[in-house]
């Protein structure tokens, strides 16, 4: 008997030449690609080290403690040029966060309104929304920003000839002054009532809603929590001595307005441009989300006797949101990133402060690294938080 014949597995192994063996190919591809990428990075880094040495670049972050010595207009949080570079950077970050968070809220509201208008049965309203969307989607944001800033907000009249809008709102070269409620001395005590009311209302909402889901009995969670939300602050208003809120009307004193809420022309132009631009995109997101809901859903809901508002709130919206949320997240991120265009109209945001810091401190690499990392962190955080919400609403998928 010939026992020398190799076992089948050995034979197949033997037949496959080494250059066609899947495992060998895979491993070598692994090594080659790793070498290529590491080699590329090493080349870049070595070039960089030579250049850094030749120019005497400082790569440390020690400069962050040095005084910035440049002014920031309208810093929002207390700032003066004697503060450090690091603190100036934070001021820039706060200004970016402020304009993007207000922008996101306003753009969502405006975008939803326009998106719904686009779906209106009224032909004129629907066309009007279409015109708005087409205009804002096809013009670069920078052009819109320039239109809002240079011919409009940068040429507002001097304070003495301020334009007065109902409210009253005063528009002048010094900024836009809104009439705005402000806290008096007892305001702090009252704001605690407001917070407590809000907290209790939210807890009530959750508890009663859970109970309804468990037992199937009507718990009127919406109405009850709304009542709490109104009643507790009202109680506070009566209990707190004096008037906790006061309408703060801007008034002319000397060469400028005092009181009220002030937006600088740069902030106003940036905010309006960001909001109107992003709203055009959000409107399309909302429209396509609503249209993605099967028409039969609406008919069925009407047939079982739900009112029109109930159909929208309970049937259409929950389903549309699933489609709407993911692209909406990317619009929010776009708005935050686009706010860096502020540089071009002189609103000193994160990127703008970073550029001044580069010029003043001469630390290109560290400042640049910090700026990129901050934007990246903002983007990743926003999408992380919103993705959690997104996963929760997507969970209902059958």
């Amino acid at each position, binding site marked *: 008997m010939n026992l020398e014949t190799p076992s089948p597995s050995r034979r197949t192994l033997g037949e496959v030449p080494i250059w066609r063996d899947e495992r060998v190919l*895979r491993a070598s*591809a*692994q090594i080659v*690609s*790793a070498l290529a*990428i*590491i080699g590329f990075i090493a080349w*870049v880094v070595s*070039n*960089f080290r*030579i*250049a*850094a040495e*030749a*120019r005497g*670049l400082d790569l440390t972050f020690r400069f962050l403690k040095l005084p910035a010595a440049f002014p920031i207009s309208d810093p929002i949080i207390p700032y003066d040029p004697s503060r450090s570079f690091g603190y100036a950077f934070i001021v820039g970050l706060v200004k970016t966060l402020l304009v993007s968070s207000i922008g996101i809220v306003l753009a969502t509201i405006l975008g939803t309104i326009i998106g719904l208008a686009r779906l*209106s*049965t*009224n*032909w*004129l*309203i629907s066309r*009007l929304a279409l015109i708005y969307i*087409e*205009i804002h*989607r*096809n*013009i*670069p*944001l*920078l*052009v*819109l920003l*320039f*239109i809002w800033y*240079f*011919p*409009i907000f940068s*040429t507002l009249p001097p304070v003495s000839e301020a334009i007065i809008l109902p409210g009253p709102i005063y528009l002048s070269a010094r900024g836009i002054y809104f009439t705005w409620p402000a806290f008096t001395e007892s305001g702090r005590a009252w704001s605690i009532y407001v917070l407590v009311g809000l907290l209790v209302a939210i807890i009530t909402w959750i508890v009663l809603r859970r109970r309804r889901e468990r037992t199937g009995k009507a718990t009127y969670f919406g109405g009850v929590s709304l009542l709490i939300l109104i009643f507790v602050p009202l109680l506070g208003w009566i209990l707190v001595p004096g008037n906790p809120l006061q309408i703060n009307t801007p008034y002319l004193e000397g060469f400028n307005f005092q009181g009220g809420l002030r937006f600088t022309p740069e902030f106003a132009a940036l905010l309006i441009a960001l909001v109107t631009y992003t709203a055009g995109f959000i409107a399309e997101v909302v429209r396509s989300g609503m249209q993605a809901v099967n028409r039969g859903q609406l008919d069925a809901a009407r047939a079982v006797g739900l009112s029109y508002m109930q159909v929208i709130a309970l049937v259409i919206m929950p389903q549309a949101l699933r489609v709407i949320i993911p692209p909406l997240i990317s619009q929010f*991120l776009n708005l935050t*990133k*686009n706010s*860096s*265009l502020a*540089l*071009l109209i002189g609103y000193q945001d994160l*990127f703008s402060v970073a*550029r001044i810091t*580069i010029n003043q401190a001469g630390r*290109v*690499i560290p400042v*640049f690294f910090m*700026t*990129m990392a901050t*934007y*990246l962190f903002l*983007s*990743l955080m926003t999408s992380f938080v919103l993705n959690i919400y997104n996963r929760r609403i997507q969970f209902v998928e059958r």
Partner: protein
Amino acid sequence: MTAPVENLTAPTSPGPIVWIRRNLFNNWYNSILSLLTLFIGYFVVTAIFNWVFNIADWRPVVNFPILYLVGQFPRDQLWRVFLSTAMVSLLMGMSWGIWGKLVRPFALSVGAFFGILALLPVQSEILSPANRALLFLNLFLVLGGFALRRFEVLRGRYIAIGWIVAGLLIVLVILPGFRGSAFLPEISTTLWGGLLVTLLLAGGGITLSIPIAIFLALGRRSSLPVVKGFCVVFIETVRGVPLITILFMFSVIIQLFLPVESRLDRLFRALIGMTLFSAAYTAENLRGGLQAVALGQIEAAKAVGMNNVLITGLIVMPQAIRAVIPALVGQFISLFKDTTLVLILGINELLGIGKAIINSDPEFIRLQAEVYIFMAGVYWILSSIMSYSSRQLEAALGVGER
């Protein structure tokens, strides 16, 4: 028994009065809304017309047509730009002939664009009758290129090669020229400007980004951890930061990461920034396209004995690219709009020219509204045309219908 045919006429379209009642006044609040809209709309439209035709002073716009088109490009060398556009027009026409409906809207837009440009009612020494004729020639080149489809020698792959050769010729030879050459004297890119630079940056950015995007998209799906990690980090970083920071990085910092002796042209640095930015987004689109390729395709290819490289190159990629062509056009449009940002690097693209013209004459400072609204109009028209063509292309491709 046959059905009585005379009763089966198509329903007639409703008359205008019925249409108005149904679309504008179908209930009380719609009626109020419609009336209000008409009322306000009338005032807004008349105010706009009044401003455009009576109040606005269009001098900063109509006096500098060539500046808006090509910037400071030497006027005696304009024939090079004409030659470039002629090549593009001819190739557009030929592509239309070969690929038919897919390219038709783009080709017709190109032809119409030059036709309208040639007939613009503006006064300019450089827009002489001869130059207008050269511009108008583009329209005939598009149509002529289309007529060439009768020759069967012309195949898709030759046209594709023609595009690549023409693109390289235009960007590397015709426009920049050579130092010391009498026929093609060197023209520094600092003199290029206007719509020419806008289109070069957008077109160059999208074209160069496609090969990079293919590597990134494949790399992100790769089983090799180093490759995958590199691609993921690259894509997510680029998508997470504003374009303006990337452009800034390539204008200032890139020099530090390259060998000391190399000097990169400013326009070229901007182009690298645009390309890498666009590549990250295109890679994500392409990844969607790759995921959409049916697994059966890959299994079938394996069954007939193809290896991974062949499968990717011949089976998966063509289908994936076909699926993302509309997204690529969309990416091109947004890149076209994003080119405005390079003005922060001191490159005079279209918007930069507008700004430069405003700053050139103290009288124009108060005419900023006219300039920027004109800019908005130009961008709006061009990107609307591209969006429209892209929708036609999508319909012609029938993505998702096969």
